[in-house]
């Protein structure tokens, strides 16, 4: 049929985890070689973009900010005031640079997931969220030990205010939730959101083609499916911003917990 010949001959459906492993760029097109792929390129691009953007916009700071300077100052001001100071208090200003870097890095990396023709986020590979979570994890423990000293920090974070006879029940829970679950949930939350988002877009895009291939009369359903892809892209935008924010806020709240004096 006429319609069918327009459609790509063979669309792989349903999408699988394999779709996240893209062919290598250097050496070109090689499979099972993951040293330099689209994912790697995107991460380096993100890093470069953030560095260049902040350097350029702060090059000659004006008293009345230019447009670029205004954007950069807004981002930093937002993380500094609404995340760092809000969660940690006045001492949080120290952590504003790290939190801003974290926020912009995650935001931009996530954002590749909905940029047309790019449409995959590096954070849909768990290695990147895991590394970021590890950095935050080491940092909040380090900050806690620096602030309290090792023994006192362990006491503050492991021993809740409770009568002695329930402590044996509570200390394992505290240990588990503070030192094991936190980095894990931080990494998995970001990874799973980005992974699921990419999967969702794949299902609806490829699903449209798959239906059309099965029967040309399914065209209306395919159109609905592709319309859903566009709608879900907007939903993804929400998820992208939210997850970048959540990661930053949780890191800040862990630092706050490490610095807290009494409990």
């Amino acid at each position, binding site marked *: 049929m006429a319609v069918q010949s327009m459609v790509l001959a063979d669309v792989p459906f349903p999408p699988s985890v394999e779709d996240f492993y893209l062919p290598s760029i250097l050496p070109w097109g090689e499979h099972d070689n993951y040293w330099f792929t689209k994912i790697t390129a995107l991460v380096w691009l993100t890093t470069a973009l953030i560095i260049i953007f902040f350097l350029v916009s702060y090059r000659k700071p004006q008293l009345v900010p230019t447009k670029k300077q205004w954007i950069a100052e807004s981002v930093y001001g937002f993380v500094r005031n609404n995340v760092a100071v809000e969660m940690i208090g006045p001492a949080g200003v120290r952590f504003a640079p790290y939190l801003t870097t974290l926020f912009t890095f995650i935001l931009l990396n996530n954002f590749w997931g909905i940029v047309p023709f790019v449409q995959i986020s590096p954070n849909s590979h768990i290695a990147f969220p895991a590394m970021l979570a590890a950095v935050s994890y080491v940092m909040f423990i380090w900050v806690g030990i620096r602030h309290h000293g090792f023994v006192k920090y362990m006491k503050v974070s492991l021993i809740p205010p409770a009568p002695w006879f329930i402590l044996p029940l509570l200390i394992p829970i505290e240990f588990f939730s503070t030192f094991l679950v936190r980095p894990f949930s931080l990494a998995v939350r970001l990874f799973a959101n980005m992974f699921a988002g990419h999967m969702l877009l794949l299902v609806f895009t490829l699903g449209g083609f798959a239906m059309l291939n099965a029967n040309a009369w399914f065209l209306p359903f395919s159109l609905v499916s592709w319309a859903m892809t566009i709608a879900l892209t907007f939903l993804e935008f929400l998820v992208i911003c939210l997850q970048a924010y959540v990661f930053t806020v*949780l890191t800040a709240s862990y630092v706050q917990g490490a610095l807290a004096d009494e409990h």
Partner: protein
Amino acid sequence: MGMTAVAYLLTGMLVWGGIGWLVDHWVGTRGIFAGIGAVVGMAGGVYLIVRRLGA
């Protein structure tokens, strides 16, 4: 924070449920200690939420 509360509930159940499961294996029972452990762990989680996140 909501996340922290959920984390306490889940880890409470997991830790003590897990310990109960190990006890089950050791003693040879078929799940009674895992059940008790999960309930006790949840109670511990609720207690921690009240103490750490409550007033």
